[in-house]
């Protein structure tokens, strides 16, 4: 079972990793974008921490909604609405009042989150976006694999973005010149699953 406490640990981990890896994400975004992806996400998840300091959402859907709304209203850029929508949709897929969910339900909820991202951003697998890391990781969870395995799948997805030509987002302006660089959004998505593995009980 995944509890509200696990999810808060997930968010704590993510915040910590973003503090550490902000510059690295910015550097990835410098190569094929505008050098702000790390700063954007840190600003958002920092605000999430502040909100959670003052608020104690009663259940998982409320927690996810708080995260989603906070990201949308503080991140900006492409990643703000995308990750924000992700958390909003995850929250909507979990029954109101739940303070714990089974891993399978959580995997289903994450899949709904990914659909939200794709509805909004119209990216397909292989377009060199966060979708390329999120999608294989969520597939792993849907196939009942462990969060650690999902995290590995996300890393593999991230690595697979390197040879691709970007077709969505700012990197797409570079055309062929976007080849040879990892996608920053895929890198932050990999962090998301690293932290999910850290924060959830190894079943």
């Amino acid at each position, binding site marked *: 079972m995944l509890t509200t406490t696990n999810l808060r640990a997930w968010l704590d981990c993510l915040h910590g990793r973003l503090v550490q890896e902000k510059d690295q994400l910015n550097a990835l975004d410098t190569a*094929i*974008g505008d050098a702000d992806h790390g700063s954007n996400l840190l600003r958002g998840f920092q605000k999430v921490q502040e909100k959670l300091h003052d608020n104690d959402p009663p259940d998982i859907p409320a927690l996810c909604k708080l995260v989603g709304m906070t990201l949308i209203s503080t991140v900006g850029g492409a990643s703000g609405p995308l990750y924000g929508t992700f958390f909003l949709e995850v929250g909507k897929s979990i029954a109101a009042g739940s303070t714990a969910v089974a891993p399978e339900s959580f995997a289903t909820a994450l899949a709904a989150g990914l659909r939200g991202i794709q509805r909004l*951003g119209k990216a397909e697998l292989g377009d060199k976006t966060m979708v390329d890391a999120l999608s294989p990781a969520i597939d792993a969870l849907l196939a009942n694999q462990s969060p650690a395995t999902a995290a590995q799948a996300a890393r593999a997805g991230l690595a697979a973005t390197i040879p691709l030509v970007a077709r969505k*987002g700012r990197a797409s302006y*570079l055309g062929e010149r976007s080849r040879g660089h990892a996608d920053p959004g895929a890198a932050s998505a990999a962090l998301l699953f690293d932290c999910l593995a850290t924060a959830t009980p190894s079943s």
Partner: protein
Amino acid sequence: MKALVNAPENVVAEALEGMALAYPELLHVETEPRFLRRSDAPRRGKVALVSGGGSGHEPLHGGFVGSGMLDAACPGEVFTSPTPDQILAAAQAVNGGAGVLLIVKNYTGDVLNFQLAAELLAAADIPTETVLVDDDVAVTDSLYTAGRRGVGATVLIEKICGAAAEAGKSLADVARIGREVNAAARSMGLALTPCTNPQAGQPSFQLGEQEIEFGIGIHGEPGRSRIPLAKADTLTEMLLTPILADLPFRSGDTVLLFVDGLGATPLLELYIVYRAATRIAEQHGLRISRRLVGSYMTSLDMAGVAITLLRMQEDWLGYWDAPVRTPALSWGATPC
């Protein structure tokens, strides 16, 4: 990275405070959420114009807030689009009952955030239209990409739509004019130096003493190709050639020629490029009836130039000439 800043994370907040102090009669700066608005907004019965985008492009957009142009501007962090709640709050604050036109540059971040804001505005029963600006011929337009970037045409659309709104045009009309201007405008830019986002602290790319980035955007992203430095006349021609090829500019067309500095370009150089551009335009039989030369849509400390050519329509001349009073563009009956 050398810049006149205090803490990188406070750059936008402090610059906005500075703007509020510098233009007390013209505009107000709201902080929670962050936007600038005309001091006399909302204007009853006038379509309200709201734009916005990442900071670092000054004077765009905040410098175009004022009578005859924008009612509000929403600045995001440096090179980061604003958030929906900023856009919603700005639109609500300046809506004068005739609806709100959102002027959005075609970048995924801007598009998504303005789209979410538009949904919130619809939920709040505020009539809203969006003009998407995508005039940059450096980028291949395709169904399978993010499409062309919005660059120099933004300034022209904000001026022309601003005047149309001031003249009492309806929301549908102002939006239509904005889309027509966008469709008639093409742009292309190049950089002599990278820029440095103060939050990243590193130049956006490295360029040799004899290299330039060609087909550059306005966020420090590398351009389409790296080419050797050449004479101003040659580079101007290289910028204008794809522009002229992309739209059926015809001999006899009346155009507005906009030569834009990217932030660190001496005015002296802009005039040299302007001279070269007029010659090329005239060789193509174009009649330059209006012009704008200066640094209006910048990329922080980037040296370089972008050219926008707008095929003018008769009624746009009047909108262009109409009075405007903003920090960055200001004239009475005719521009100077």
